[in-house]
């Protein structure tokens, strides 16, 4: 492959992940996954439990090593990308440190990078502004609501201005109203910061509303079934949720997800016929 100006934000080539290989409880979490994500893209990974979507995210983050295959982030190996803090991460539990104020939580990745105090404080204030929590810097995480905590977690993930944001069901624990609000906020923040996002979710509307492409996965072994482009334009608002295109995309994701199920039912039915 020749060097091109447009380096992929994420490149997954033939990645497989097998846990407990060679033992009785061997789990084929991922099988031969290929995925290329362009800079600035918003890609969701969706699928039933055990489809390996979180595993794929952790492979990209280099929190797990692939059994086979290669993963690069911004043209670097995933290991180098992690060392260089090329990505930020947010989890379902906001995972803020109780003993740090909101500002100090946001400063954590900067502190680990060795930034000086003044620079850190300036950046933390900027990030608080970005997630609209400027009055809350001196509060402690447990004094905030779940949605606010998650916004702080996003601010923390983006504090070092990484080009890539990896999110593992970040809104899974929020109520529906807060969830929709957070989705809008996330899109705004990503547009303002030109961040690439890989987003793991269980929710079809969430995946469709947020993404440029939805990666539909199936379990045992985890693999990609289909990648569905969502053509809702780059500017999305609450009106998008009522648009025809929104529902069409939801339907195609749902069908892709059901596909496995339908195939499964069909194949057993056919076998049933043959047996008789």
């Amino acid at each position, binding site marked *: 492959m020749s060097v091109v100006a447009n380096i992929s934000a994420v490149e997954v080539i033939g990645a497989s992940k097998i846990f407990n290989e060679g033992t009785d409880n061997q789990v084929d979490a991922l099988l031969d996954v290929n995925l290329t994500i362009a800079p600035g893209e918003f890609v969701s990974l969706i699928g039933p439990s055990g489809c390996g979507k979180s595993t794929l995210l952790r492979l990209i983050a280099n929190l797990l090593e692939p059994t086979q295959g290669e993963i690069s982030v911004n043209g670097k190996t995933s290991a180098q990308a992690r060392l260089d803090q090329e990505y930020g991460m947010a*989890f379902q539990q906001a*995972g803020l*440190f109780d003993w740090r104020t909101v500002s100090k939580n946001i400063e954590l990745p900067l502190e*680990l990078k060795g930034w000086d105090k003044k620079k850190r404080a300036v950046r933390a204030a900027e990030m608080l502004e970005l997630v609209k929590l400027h009055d809350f810097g001196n509060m402690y995480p447990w004094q905030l609501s779940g949605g606010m905590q998650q916004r702080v977690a996003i601010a923390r993930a983006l504090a070092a201005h990484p080009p890539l944001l*990896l999110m593992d069901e970040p809104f899974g624990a929020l109520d529906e109203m807060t969830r929709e609000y957070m989705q809008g906020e996330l899109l705004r923040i990503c547009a303002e910061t030109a961040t690439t996002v890989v987003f793991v979710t269980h929710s079809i509307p969430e995946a469709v509303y947020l993404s440029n492409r939805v990666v539909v996965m199936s379990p045992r072994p985890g693999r990609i079934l289909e990648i569905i482009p969502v053509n809702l334009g780059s500017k999305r608002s609450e009106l998008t949720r009522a648009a025809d295109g929104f529902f069409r995309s939801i339907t195609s994701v749902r069908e892709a997800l059901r596909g496995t199920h339908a195939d499964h039912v069909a194949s057993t039915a056919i076998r049933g016929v043959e047996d008789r």
Partner: protein
Amino acid sequence: MKFVRRIAYRTFMFLLTLVLLVGIWELYKATGPQDGGILFGARVLPRANDTAMPHVSTMFSRYGRPEVRGSDKEIWQVVLSGAWFSLRLSLVGFFLGTTIGVGLAVLMARFKTVRRGLLPYLVMSQTVPLIALAPLVVSWGGKLEIGSFVWPRWLSASILGTFLAFFPVAVGTLRGLTSSPLAAVELMSSYAASWRQTLFKLRFPAAVPFMVPALKLGASGAVVGVVVAEISTGLKGGIGRLIIEYAREATGDPAKVFTAVFGAAALGLTMSGLVAFFDLFLMRNRPRETST
């Protein structure tokens, strides 16, 4: 402000409990059998007479009288200076014990092999009777010569305090260091944080709620170690020595030994009070499950 209110509340509860205990003591003394309750030849109820159970007021007024007839020192001065002596030894023992305990916990948290190999020996070390160990430590210490350093006798008592203090600290700290939520550990490794950074920025702060009870146990352990060592090595000047001396006079002057016992209790309370203060300070900005 919450900080101050919490201290006030705790002090109030402590005093209330004290009043209750005094009440129970006096109630039993007033209603219990003078020569104890004997059931099938065994004494199940303690004697309620003045020799076995002096009035609380007698014990406290004993503080105001001289230690021995004709002495110009009142007993509260003697007990106080004994407690102060033992407190200093206990602090040395507690400090050494905490240092060793936390150090071992960090090693065990870092290396699984160290944990597997060491932990059984740590548990075993606590089954050695202190009384057997005390003379050994004294004689080892006496043989120790490092340059011009001469092993002072009191250091043996502190070392025995260390011996009792380090274990709960090591176990509690280890538990705390390994209790960080997986997501937080993953977060730190997503930032490519070094083990040391993870230790100081995540594991230690997350361990504080586990370390506080361990340190309280360690603090009282240090006191017990020091007091027992004073008794079994015959070290003069401390509260342990006073207890054993006053206990010999129990028939003639029953309230006397209680003055020293309360001194030892106050010593233990002072030590765990120090830990409690440290707890309130470190946890001042954290959520409390038990809001009061």
